[in-house]
């Protein structure tokens, strides 16, 4: 009995209005009429009551014959052939041109009447068409035609037509836009046992719906019950604002690096060969550049490089610039070094920072830099991507410190202390090392590359202390963290994907 009480308390006003009028097999239309509810209100009431197990909605389809565009007109004015016939019935003969009927209906009328042998047509001496009604035709006007009677009765259910109606239906169906057949849904309700019990209860109306200012001001709530809601009901989803998943991941990386004492650095998107490669002691003609196939720009082709600095870098390439190195031993191309391209590696920003006046030593720096490579875009390659890298410059740094830093990165970015530091190769560092980290879920991954910048690189840039360089493979971590299988989805333009993407914490 408590269940019934609770159920009663949860009825919406529309349900309460509908409930007393329910009976077995009642249709939606009947409920509308009986309860005075609008169609949409009655429908909602039925649906909600169905959700509550009070009734069950049965749906059946039925075909209904209704008036079409011309049919509406003909029901009012009469069928064209009848109107035609009426005008000639009491005359001996009439010129067709004198009959008052719209032009587009004339042929229809003549066609229909000839078929019924109701008129005679002939040409007079002037060649004009004249018409007269036959006896049979005159007789037709004495009673209402089956078609006219049928039109007046519409709409009718197709399956329940009487034989005469069926005849009229068939005849009118052949003509243009007089009648049409609509498929309608017929909804009826059958009452469940629960519903039957409920209908025995007294449905009172003293429930509070919305909490209006009036309800509060007049303290109505003190003497009334609150209508209980169906709190389990599904509500429409909303899509509000949130950060893009990959961008949020990068924000997080930036925050971590800042908290580890790294200061952000940056550089231009359009770089010169000088900063992108030459200043990193990558020889102008060497296979190490094969891995950096680049996007050179159309116009302008060349940029401006500080001549004094360029001379030093040139000397480093050619003879080692007094670093104790013999250099690459080739003639440095001073034009090629000015060639402009889209930045291929974030290390360009490190070179710029190392040579800048505002560099602080000791100092830790990082860059999250947009880089570009000549690559076919597919599930594992983007031609447009972010690199995360930087350096630490400090007197007395050793390979031991590099290991210490890599361990810190493993803890911070892969949540692990299980690491291996293995020999690796980068054109601008010696010694070089790779960081393998055992990620708790991904297993062993190549997390970072690192090394001590070569003296041939740092000295021309004005740096005399050891510099540890590092780069972290952020995209792979991002794809794992975001559960993305295709690298292109880091920049997804699919709104449904973006809206469904979970946030990270």
């Amino acid at each position: 009995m408590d269940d019934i009480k609770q159920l009663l308390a949860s009825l919406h006003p529309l349900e309460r209005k509908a409930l007393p009028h329910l009976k077995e097999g009642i249709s939606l239309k009947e409920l509308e009429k009986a309860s005075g509810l609008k169609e949409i209100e009655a429908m909602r009431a039925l649906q909600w009551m169905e959700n509550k197990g009070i009734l069950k909605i049965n749906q059946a389809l039925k075909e209904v014959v209704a008036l079409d565009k011309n049919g509406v007109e003909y029901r009012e004015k009469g069928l064209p052939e009848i109107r035609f016939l009426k005008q000639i019935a009491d005359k001996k003969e009439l010129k067709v041109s004198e009959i008052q009927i719209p032009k587009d209906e004339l042929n229809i009328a003549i066609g229909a009447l000839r078929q019924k042998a109701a008129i005679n047509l002939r040409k007079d001496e002037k060649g004009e068409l004249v018409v007269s009604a036959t006896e049979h035709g005159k007789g037709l006007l004495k009673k209402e035609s089956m078609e006219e009677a049928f039109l007046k009765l519409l709409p009718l259910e197709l399956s329940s037509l009487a034989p005469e109606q069926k005849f009229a239906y068939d005849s009118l169906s052949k003509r243009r836009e007089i009648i049409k057949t609509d498929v309608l849904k017929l909804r009826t309700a059958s009452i469940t046992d629960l519903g039957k019990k409920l209908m025995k209860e007294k449905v009172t109306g003293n429930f509070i719906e919305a909490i209006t200012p009036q309800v509060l001001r007049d303290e109505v709530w003190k003497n009334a019950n609150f209508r209980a809601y169906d709190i389990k009901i599904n509500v429409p989803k909303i899509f509000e604002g949130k950060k893009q998943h990959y961008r949020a991941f990068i924000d997080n990386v930036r925050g971590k690096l800042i908290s580890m004492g790294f200061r952000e650095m940056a550089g231009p998107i359009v770089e010169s060969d000088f900063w992108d490669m030459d200043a990193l002691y990558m020889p102008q003609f060497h296979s190490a550049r094969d891995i950096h196939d680049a996007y050179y720009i159309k116009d302008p082709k060349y940029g401006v490089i500080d001549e004094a600095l360029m001379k030093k870098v040139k000397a480093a390439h050619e003879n080692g610039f007094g670093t104790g190195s013999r250099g690459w031993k080739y003639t440095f191309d001073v034009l090629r070094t000015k060639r402009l391209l889209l930045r291929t590696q974030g290390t360009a920003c490190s070179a710029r920072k190392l040579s800048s006046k505002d560099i602080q030593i000791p100092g830790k720096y990082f860059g999250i830099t947009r880089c570009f490579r000549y690559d076919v875009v597919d599930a594992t390659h983007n031609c447009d991507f972010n690199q995360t890298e930087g350096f630490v410059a400090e007197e007395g740094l050793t390979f031991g410190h590099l290991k210490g830093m890599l361990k810190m990165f493993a803890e911070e970015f892969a949540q692990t202390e299980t690491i291996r530091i293995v020999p690796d190769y980068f054109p601008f560092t010696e010694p070089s090392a790779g960081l393998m980290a055992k990620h708790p879920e991904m297993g062993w991954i190549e997390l970072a590359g690192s090394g001590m910048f070569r003296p041939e690189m740092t000295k021309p840039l004005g740096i005399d202390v050891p510099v540890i360089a590092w780069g972290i493979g952020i995209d792979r971590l991002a794809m794992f963290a975001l559960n993305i299988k295709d690298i292109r989805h880091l920049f997804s333009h699919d709104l449904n994907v973006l809206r469904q993407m979970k946030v990270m914490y």
Partner: protein
Amino acid sequence: MPTITFDINDLNKLVGKKLTKEKIQELLDYSKGEIEAVNGNEISVKSADTNLPYLWSVEGIAILFKGLLGLEKGLKQLKLEKTKDTVIVDKSVKDVRPCIAAFSVKGARVDEYLLKQIIQLQEKFCHSYGMKRLKVAVGVYNYNKIKFPVYYKAVLPESVQFMPLGFKREMTLGEIIESHPTGMEYAHLLKGFKSYPLLVDSNKQVLSFPPIINSEHSGKVLPGDSELFFEATGNDRGAVQLAANIFAFAFAERGFKIREVTIDYSGKKEQSPAFFNDSIKLKAEDANKLLGLNLKETEVKHLLEKFRYGYDKGKVLIPDYRRDIMHPVDVIEDIGIAYGYDKIPLRSMKEYTLGGTFPITKFVDKARELAVGMGYQEIYSPMLCNANLLYSQMNVEDFGTVEIETPMTELFSCVRTWILPQLMELLSSNKNAEYPQRIFEQGMVTMKKDLKDFERMAVVTAHTSASFTEIKQALDFIMNNLGVKYDIENTVHHSFIPGRVGRVVVNGKGVAYIGEMHPKVLANFGLSVPVSAFEMNLTDLFETIKK
């Protein structure tokens, strides 16, 4: 990064010890190598160091492994057998391809597997280190088919014809360049030269047309051959000599005797292979300083010898198959690797440094937060796009774009100059997603003028009743919360409807456009809902409000 394939049993035979796959990977760590694939006894190894081509052969790997395992130690040197064989170099090659190195071998037999290994090393060396044959190209021949002296000269393309390797008819050098598949592939290396390099013997039999192709006559090595002739040509003398040295050491590992060839540069004679006998000075303390170790000189010597260097009183003797040592740091790395990276004690950073970012980064992040707070979904797009999207589809003229000279695809042929077009494209491809669609993107663009980068933000609302009022409210919300006073002036911008577009001005500087998108633009993107938007230059805004 070259990958080579060889048989594990072969490696074991060369090393003289049975090694498991695990042990091989452990040893490969020392050479920056990685097992890529194992297929039965066949193993594929990728080498990370593009500067150490001796490791692109199983013989080179074996030389290093023997040192690491303590089976051999120190510098490996080759004994050469004297011969009267000479290659006479004509002055005519000076411009086109001036350098050559050569030697011959005998005393062992080539089988099918070894032939594959020779071709593999030849291909990897010439492709990667040899810069696709520009710097170095290598040829191997049947020694018995050659009558010395051999002449290396440049000849007119139509003056000589021979049967190229694998072909059944004779072709002139010009024909080979024009119609032979290998000739066409490498034709660019000889572009602009009147004469082409040629190796021809005393019987006027062509050995090869370097750097293109060998002859069928002598340039075809078959299983069962036991005497071979080797040559390398190119434009970098050191690189050509390195090629000869690496091959000589590899053949010697297989039990071949290496026989000298005299290279006669117009009377100036030199022996080949020309060993570098190179060395570099090293102080143990420098190694200790860089690695963070405390090694004694004897320990340094031991580690160097393990890595197949020699050491003599502060001087590191460099193997003749290496040419990558430029600075003591290069040797110090190998000392560190030989010592074991994992054994070097780990140290913490000692200096405290203050982290931080740029003021503009903090500023744009606040603007992003405000947009998110208004219920806008953030978007992140690539920076590469195309002029058609940026301008034609937006109904405006190009406003100065950085274009790529040789784009891979027209879709990504320039750097974006504004962001709104990409957001319009997004709306266009998301017509099936539920409306309202409220999106924004904050990010960098690059202008051709002064090649300057700017931080910008585009904010877009699209739904059946999107209006100027709604987008102006959004602009107003962001500006108010950033504490920026602004005016909106009437302006013309053909992406927007005339009379419904404004220029947002702060301190007299235009920083944004705002308006209802023109139906023409909507039609270009196939959109049938109204769209309102603004796009703001955050770099300019930040600079003007800071003053």
